[in-house]
């Protein structure tokens, strides 16, 4: 008998005493922990910043300048640019080198950072989710370089985890990012940047106020 059949047989024998139809699963928890009246974008910005990430809020017209300011702040010049990234969003000027795929891992390692879009944000937890869609790149792109600048549109921000999971396609490769890489393994002192990017900068694009 194969181990597959053996294990499945043991499982069936082990649960033989249980009722065929178990009690329904209670789902009394909240779909969202956003306090009524609280704006999801406000909370998202606050919670992302709580992880010692930098957060900038801008409107579409201000985006290129916001990107330029973010990169200048950290003197980041050589950046990976994912396929499908809308180049019209990028700041003009020759201070920056945009490196496009295909890039090898050692090439990525020599870059200063990466600029990506995102798939979904989660306000209550301050999380951004990348699903390798256009403008987000494969998973290595936002991982190997030490700096990650992530641009997210306000309408991509879900209130809470249940809503965010419902918006995602689980069959795509997904990365949930909540702040920069961190460890608390040494006396529980939080240290940013062990193996992933040490710096996370999130730019939120909000619709222009009329």
């Amino acid at each position, binding site marked *: 008998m*194969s*181990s*597959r059949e*053996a*294990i*499945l047989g*043991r*499982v069936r*024998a*082990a*649960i033989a005493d*249980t*009722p065929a139809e*178990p*009690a329904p*699963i*209670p*789902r*009394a*928890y*909240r779909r969202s922990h956003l306090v009524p009246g609280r704006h999801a974008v406000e909370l998202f910005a606050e919670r992302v910043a*709580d992880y010692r990430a930098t957060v900038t809020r801008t409107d579409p017209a201000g985006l290129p300048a916001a990107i330029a300011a973010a990169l200048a702040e950290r003197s980041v010049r050589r950046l990976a640019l994912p396929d499908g990234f809308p180049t019209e969003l990028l700041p003009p000027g020759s201070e920056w080198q945009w490196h496009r795929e295909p890039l090898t*891992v050692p090439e990525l*390692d020599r870059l200063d950072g990466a600029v990506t879009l995102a798939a979904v944000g*989660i306000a*209550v*937890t*301050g999380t951004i989710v990348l699903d390798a869609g256009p403008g987000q790149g*494969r*998973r*290595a792109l936002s*991982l*190997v370089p030490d700096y990650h600048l992530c641009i997210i549109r306000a309408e991509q921000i879900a209130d809470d*985890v*249940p809503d965010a*999971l*419902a918006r995602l396609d*689980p*069959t*795509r*490769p*997904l*990365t*949930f990012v*909540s*702040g920069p*890489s*961190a*460890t*608390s*393994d*040494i*006396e*529980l002192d939080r*240290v940013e*940047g*062990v*193996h*992933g*990017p040490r710096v996370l900068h999130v730019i939120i694009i909000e619709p222009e106020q009329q």
Partner: protein
Amino acid sequence: MTNDRGVVWLDTPAFPEAARTALADTQLRANLKRATSTIRDKRLTVAAELDDWEQLRESAAAIKQHTARHLDRYLVQLEEAVTAAGGTVHWAADAAEANRIVTELVQATGESEVVKVKSMATQEIGLNEHLAEHGITAYETDLAELIVQLGDDRPSHILVPAIHKNRTEIRDLFRAEMGHWGQPAPEDLTDEPRELAEAARRHLRQKFLTAKVAVSGANFACADTGTVLVVESEGNGRMCLTLPETLITVMGIEKVLPTWSDLEVFLQLLPRSSTGERMNPYTSAWTGVTEGDGPSAFHLVLLDNGRTDTLADPVGRQTLGCIRCSACLNVCPVFERTGGHAYGSVYPGPIGAVLTPQLVGVEQAASLPFASTLCGACYDACPVKINIPEVLAHLRAKVVEAKDGHTVEGLAMKAAGKVLDSPRLLGAAQKAAALGGRALARDGKIGRLPGPLHGWTDTRDTPAPPAESFRTWWRKNREGGSS
């Protein structure tokens, strides 16, 4: 190192003896107290942010219970979904089979080095040691696991395995050992956590960039979509899960969830319960293989190794709901004082005291169900509502049964049963106890008892029995008295 079922299990010395040694280590106690109280406070703060925490726990417990009751169905569904997405599923009945499968998969790639994401399942089966016997070096890439590996030490906590070491001990270890494994530590390395983390980053970077094979565990796997998840903080997980060509994931069969949307419960409970964060820095989710992104070969090894035996026990099966958050460790008064090593088990603390005896067999880990005060703090902290005190008491009964009542406790209970059955014997015994007890007592307390009873009195005082029993008092004052 491993018992006959293949579970890594040290049991030398047994808990009471190991605990006595640990308790004498003041440095260890200081390190532990600081760490556990810090995580406890953080956990309470972020759990309190969710006013439906109890409802989330109820749902989590019910989802796990439901999954266990249909585990055969969900495992088959998971296998189909992973296979359809381009992965390969392997079934391992025990540790030996899982180790053999992983070793052969690595050998088939022609590689002799693997990078590893911290994983309880691979620790449980002693995978690193098994790979080493076959000439394959496994590099642990989680900072704490690296500290443990460099020190030829053992993890002492599920979440923060090097919690027993302070910064100076870690600095000394990095200076002495890193050079033997790869990039040495800088000469002038101080004990600043930031510098230590930087040394680890440099030490491991070359391994990440060149490794062709990675081995991981899994926090969850969704049966409906075949999606597997790893929850982590440092990014070492992302490195291992995406850069190599081959990914081998070893997962206990209890980690399956029915659907992708069930994660909405567990992704809220796990980070808040384990590190006290609203969300952990990184969660990776993948379904089979994706062309042009991540490994081109994915193998999922489904591990039984005693889990179906646990499933067969109506009281003990709830233990399989464990999501390895380690909240129970941080609230346990026993763990806080003895540390994880005293448990002699890959799974320390309250959850280890119930899980290990079930995985290795109660008779082989007989001291662990007693490594607890039954105070219930672990039950309150558990995000999936595992009634750990109930399982502990259940396992204690099994230990006593296994010894066939030939313990002092067993004999005393048998004698007590007889006495309590007979009013005449009870009256006589109470009179004798009052006389004997008062003869032994000093200042109303009984200190040390002679003979085999000293095991009880060594660690606690017993109040002296009253001068007369309630029955005697009643007879004197009420029966035939004024009322």
